[in-house]
């Protein structure tokens, strides 16, 4: 391996174009895959941020809501009973209603989230200040997306055109259906909702969904039927699913994942084909030299090691260029374009590309293994 490493290092230093040419080709594909993956990731997260902001094991929906947070209505007293179900550790409620936020004359659409503080419904990541607690009437926390529009802690904003509240904190981005969110106590949510949509029957006794944290060591799947049974006794038909399932049920998420996931898979598939083609081309170009090296005693491991290292260098260069391109693009596109680059997503795509390049390169390694050292003598027969 030391000899292979040395050869690849010298080749990279002295004939970089031989490694850079395939790297540039793969870099374009890597950037495409990273941009597509970042798009699907951003669209997904900006659709489901409200549910991603909390930590819960189970979500209780009214069974007529078809797992939609906006449609679900549960009598608040009923959620108290959930807390007594065997295996339930804690319960919180969370409700969402569309609203408007006015700040210094600028009006923008947002979602108002009513939640119980110090329950599974409380957002986990607070970036500045604090979140409101139950019973605090005229304060709110905003998410990072709204914070980026210029609203700061201490500013006063108007919700729904009539309710003025003070911003006391900023939480991590928790967008819902591509819009930023304002987090308030449940009673503020009910009051604002009732003013905006009097016909929908918003009241303090009504909440959207209940978020449940099960006891340590308990399987949420086992606890869920007990919650359904408990609420059935109170003549309330509910559906209990995991938080992950609830995230997937947000409108548009499955379509986004299927469409962009397919495109990312296509890009990865193209990487497999391109890397296989490039590697085969190089093996064929180097065939005479490989045969001669085999003839003078280089074992198959040296040649294969050299090829694997070259693939690795090509992959690393392509990923570095792809990250730079994707990051640069994300920094230059308008804020309205849902393209935010996350290191974890880039790392995931880089890992997928490594697999793709490996699969493509394996085809070339097979051909390399079949090179006959006697070819160094030309075609003797």
């Amino acid at each position, binding site marked *: 391996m030391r000899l292979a490493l040395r050869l690849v290092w010298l080749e990279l230093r002295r004939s970089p174009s031989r490694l850079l040419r395939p790297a540039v080709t793969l870099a374009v594909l890597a950037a495409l895959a990273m941009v597509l993956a970042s798009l699907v990731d951003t669209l997904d997260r900006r659709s489901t941020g409200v549910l991603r902001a909390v930590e819960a094991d189970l979500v209780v929906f009214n069974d007529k809501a078809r797992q939609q947070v906006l449609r679900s209505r549960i009598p608040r007293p009923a959620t108290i009973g959930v807390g007594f179900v065997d295996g339930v550790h804690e319960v919180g409620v969370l409700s969402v209603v569309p609203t408007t936020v006015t700040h210094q004359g600028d009006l923008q659409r947002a979602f108002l989230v009513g939640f119980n503080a110090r329950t599974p419904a409380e957002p986990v990541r607070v970036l500045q200040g604090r979140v409101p607690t139950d019973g605090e009437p005229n304060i709110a926390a905003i998410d990072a997306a709204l914070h980026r529009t210029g609203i700061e802690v201490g500013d006063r904003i108007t919700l729904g055109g009539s309710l003025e509240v003070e911003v006391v904190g900023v939480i991590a981005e928790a967008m819902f259906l591509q819009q930023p969110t304002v987090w308030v106590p449940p009673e503020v949510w009910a009051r604002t909702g009732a003013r905006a949509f009097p016909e929908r029957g918003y009241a303090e006794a009504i909440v959207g969904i209940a978020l449940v944290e099960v006891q340590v060591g308990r399987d949420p799947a086992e606890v869920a039927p007990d919650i359904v049974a408990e609420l059935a006794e109170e003549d309330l038909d509910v559906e209990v699913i995991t938080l992950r399932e609830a995230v997937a049920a947000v409108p548009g998420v499955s379509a986004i994942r299927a469409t962009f996931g397919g495109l990312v898979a296509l890009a990865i598939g193209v990487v497999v084909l391109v890397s296989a083609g490039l590697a085969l081309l190089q093996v064929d170009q180097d065939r005479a030299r490989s045969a001669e090296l085999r003839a003078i005693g280089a074992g*198959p491991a040296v040649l294969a090691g050299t090829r694997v290292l070259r693939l690795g260098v090509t992959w690393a260069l392509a990923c570095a260029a792809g990250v730079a391109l994707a990051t640069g693009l994300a920094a230059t596109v308008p804020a309205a374009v849902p393209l935010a680059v996350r290191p974890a997503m880039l790392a995931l795509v880089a890992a997928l590309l490594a697999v793709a390049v490996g699969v493509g390169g394996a085809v070339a390694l097979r051909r390399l293994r079949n090179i006959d050292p006697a070819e160094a*003598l030309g075609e003797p*027969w």
Partner: protein
Amino acid sequence: MVRRPQEPFEGSHDEPADGPVLVADRLRKVVGHGPLSVTAVDEVSLQVERGELVAIVGPSGSGKSTLLAMLGALATPTAGSVRIDGVDPVDLDERGRSVLRARRVGFVFQRPTLVPFLTVVENVVLAGQIAGVAEGTVRERAAELLAILDLKDRSGHRPAALSGGELQRVALARALLNDPVVVLADEPTANLDAARGRAVVALLADHTRAQGRAGVLVTHDESIAARADRRVYLHDGCLASPDAAPGQVDPPRANRTEGET
């Protein structure tokens, strides 16, 4: 005179042993399948003693290179056997054959393909690195060989900057670097002018005679072959040589095509 490496490596033979270095016994090579099969080499037996340079002479397509491939453990015979310094390559696995070629056989090819991004001296040293010899030892010896082959000034150049003749001499230096027990050269003078061709053969002869090694030289040039200790003629895959040892020569076969595989 080329000095041998001071530190012998595993598998090298510093003390000449008795007996021939290279023994080919009734070698046969059939290529292709079914009715299209061709017997490229047929019942060839040959011995090369220590200190002996043998020239294999024959027209194009007579099976010279095929024979050389089997003598150098590059190809497996269909029948018969080869022993290189007492070792039958058939008894070794792929890795073992690679080690055998790296440490005991030196090859000079008709059209050498050097590593383009390595300098001349690095290409020569590469043979030692493949054989696992200490780098300091091989660098010293490579410099010595390049000086003998009049390539000292070119040692820092890349292969692309060399003429065909210079490439051939670099390949010769690479072949001699590990002080192999046998050097197999396939038309080594094909790309050289007469003077350089004679110099290359002289170096080969020096290596074999003075170092007690063996050399096999494939050529179609009688004047080059005449500088060898012995000439064997190959015709249609069979030996037809008055120089060959008695009983080791089969009559040339008129028809090389057989149905066997």
